[in-house]
């Protein structure tokens, strides 16, 4: 893989992110997340463009890894605008999250859904979106109000999380 290809790869991901920036999300947190990802990729783009021989290979490897992380998150963010989500619970859950979690008022929330029937959370531990709690609930349970308590469970998981970035 060449540097030119890596630059092209990052540029394509940036183009996709910018398309998402033009979307109208039901909650501003999703748009903020896209903005944060754009900044990360722009920084990486500058590094790729200026990489010396010594750092070229490492920068390309990092670009591949970061683009992969960004695209995975972008899928979740895109799903957060889908009508399968209960948009009306975003406000109350965000309020709870801000009271419960270390981030306080800086905490942002992305409520989304997933296709594996396995509720999940990135409890302010995703390296690219450290201020965000990302919660995914099963897509097939979109019409079931009883799935909403799972959000409380995921917030509990978020409250108990610790920084393990090196380990």
């Amino acid at each position, binding site marked *: 893989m060449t540097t030119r290809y890596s630059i092209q790869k990052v540029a394509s991901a940036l183009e996709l992110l910018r398309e998402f920036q033009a979307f109208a999300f039901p909650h501003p947190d999703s748009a903020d997340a896209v903005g*944060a990802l754009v*900044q*990360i990729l*722009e*920084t*990486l783009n*500058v*590094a790729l463009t*200026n*990489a*010396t021989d*010594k*750092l070229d290979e*490492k*920068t390309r*490897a*990092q670009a591949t*890894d*970061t683009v992969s*992380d960004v695209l*995975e998150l972008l899928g979740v963010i895109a799903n957060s605008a889908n009508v399968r989500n209960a948009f009306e619970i975003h406000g109350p859950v965000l309020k709870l999250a801000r009271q419960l979690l270390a981030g306080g008022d800086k905490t942002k929330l992305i409520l989304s859904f997933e296709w594996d029937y*396995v*509720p*999940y*959370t*990135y*409890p302010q*531990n*995703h*390296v*690219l979106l*450290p201020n965000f709690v990302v919660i995914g609930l099963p897509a097939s349970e979109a019409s079931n109000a009883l799935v909403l308590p*799972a959000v409380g*469970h*995921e917030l509990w*998981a978020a409250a108990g*999380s610790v920084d*393990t*970035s*090196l*380990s």
Partner: protein
Amino acid sequence: MSTTTEQKRPEVNDLSLLTLLAAHEIERLRKDETADSYYVAMLRDKLAGQIPNPAENVKDLAPSAVRVYRNAVCKATQTDPQDFKRLGELPAPLFDKLGEVAKRPSQKLQAADLDKLLTFLTALHSQLLAQKYVAKRSRGHSRYRV
């Protein structure tokens, strides 16, 4: 790097990306180009948060983190630390140098010091990226699953 881009630099929490960006700054200083060591300072703070005093705290790290430091230190110093005491002693000067560069990026440092720092950071970056690949492979995703 353009001035416009430097003005809106994001906070970077991905340790591998942060290490790489810091390495880029060190490389520019090595080549006598200007760099304000923004990411070097961020990395120094992040590392200081995890190992406030390497000489005493290295043994408190998770085994995988100890491996990361051992390999990076080994590459930078050409010495393989055989115990926690030595592993704590060896990175301390490197951390100090990182702090120096972070505080006074314009100050001329010995080329050898910058070479050593660059080797340390590139080795650290390789280790961190490899660790991320392993974590991704073993967990599928870095998600908490119920």
